[in-house]
């Protein structure tokens, strides 16, 4: 029974994605929609991502410093640990999970409301491919914009660690900067951004599927919104493992 539901849902999701990536009716209208989505889904998330990144960077630095009390371990190791934690895991994965909550619920509830108030039917009656018009700009916008958000998050996370290390006196600025530069592998940035793009696709497409296929009323829109966040989060965690195995393993 459960397996049946999984197959049915996956099949419906794939069919919806095939409709989403059909050739747009009018590129100009889609480009405008893309710009609107970048504004709604991307720019709107800068503040929350920035605040979380600064404080998590600070906390990672303090916790690492507290756990590396051995005087034989140089202080710049704290900065290395902070850098690796932020670049490899926190920024791409944790920020994507936060975005799954913020952006995913927004997309699912918007599309769900459009479905129950017949706005999607109105598009279909006009001859517009509603799946493509409503979903494609969201997916493309987040795949384009999320890497920028993640780069901002990486920078601010590392900056947060620098500030915390300096304020608490746990890491001297010169040691922190040395640690950040020491043994830096640029491939980790590529790995991190690759994950981000995949997560962006998962968040928007899963949330769009949940919202677009709502049947019923306000209660079902709420359920779809929750389902979108849970499903996108699980998908991110699973994809994170697979991508790490694939790209770093």
């Amino acid at each position, binding site marked *: 029974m459960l397996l049946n539901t999984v197959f049915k849902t996956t099949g419906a999701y794939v069919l919806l994605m095939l409709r989403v990536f059909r050739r747009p009716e009018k590129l100009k209208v889609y480009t405008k929609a893309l710009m609107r989505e970048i504004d709604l889904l991307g720019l709107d998330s800068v503040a929350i991502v920035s605040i979380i990144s600064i404080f998590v960077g600070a906390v990672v630095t303090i916790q690492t410093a507290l756990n590396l009390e051995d005087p034989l371990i140089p202080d710049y190791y704290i900065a290395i640990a902070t850098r690796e934690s932020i670049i490899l895991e926190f920024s791409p994965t944790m920020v994507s999970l936060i975005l799954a909550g913020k952006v995913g619920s927004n997309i699912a509830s918007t599309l769900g409301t459009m479905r129950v108030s*017949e706005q999607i*039917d109105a598009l279909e009656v*006009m001859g517009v491919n509603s799946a493509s018009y409503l979903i494609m700009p969201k997916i493309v916008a987040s795949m384009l914009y999320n890497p920028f958000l993640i780069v901002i998050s990486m920078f601010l996370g590392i900056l947060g660690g620098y500030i915390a290390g300096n304020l608490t006196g746990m890491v001297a600025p010169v040691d922190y900067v040395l640690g950040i530069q020491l043994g830096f592998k640029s491939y980790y940035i590529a790995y991190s951004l690759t994950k981000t793009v995949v997560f962006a696709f998962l968040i928007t497409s899963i949330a769009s599927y949940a919202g677009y296929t709502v049947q019923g009323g306000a209660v079902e829109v709420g359920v779809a919104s929750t389902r979108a966040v849970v499903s996108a989060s699980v998908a991110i965690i699973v994809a994170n493992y697979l991508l790490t195995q694939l790209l770093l393993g």
Partner: protein
Amino acid sequence: MIEVRELRKSFGAQEVLKGISANFEPGKANLIIGQSGSGKTVFLKSLLGLYPIDSGSILFDERDLDALDRKERQSVRQEMGMVFQYSALFDSLTVEENVMFPLNMFTEQTLGEKKDRVDFCLKRVNLEGVNAKFPAELSGGMKKRVAIARAIALNPRYLFCDEPNSGLDPRTAVVIDNLIKEIAEEFNITTVINTHDMNSVMEIGDHIVLLKDGLKAWEGSRHDIFHTEQPDIVDFVFTSELFKTIRKANRAE
């Protein structure tokens, strides 16, 4: 003209439409009436292609939607306008952007031409000075007018209305009914209106189809209603004392 032949539609084991045939002519107000659950909405959504039909055919000026490829079907769809029960205006767009939406999507007009067309459509539904407002700032009657303006923006050949005056006060309801009828006549549009409002039936019903349990139970004009003895239509229309009195008066003439 829309010709419906032996239209059947089921959801699982439940057969909702059991072989309905009807012709809807242009320039007339064609009304679909019936009790809740009689299959009116499924019938209308099947005409619109929102529900795939099980069997039968729907011909739009001799073009069968099911026999057309995707591109041709999209092109026929662009000849359709629809006024939804709750207007279905796009919340995030202003009145002007709502009416301009189909023009943006399917025409190569300049911005000036599109604005002219929007102004014409809004003026035609007696709505001016609201271009910059959002749907949430409009009354129910105004939303319906905007929905009609959006529906006629592309000069449709077919106009569908689902309960166009539900939730409106009686005076506004009559205005909306007459507006739809006037537009259908003026632009020779084939109009199909779903309603269970008896005032609409009496006011604009040029051609009325009564659905009951997924079948066509009666067909005629609003003038025929007063003289028919068909029990389904008599039961459905003349339930209130007011309509019974009107019927008596009409039959006495």
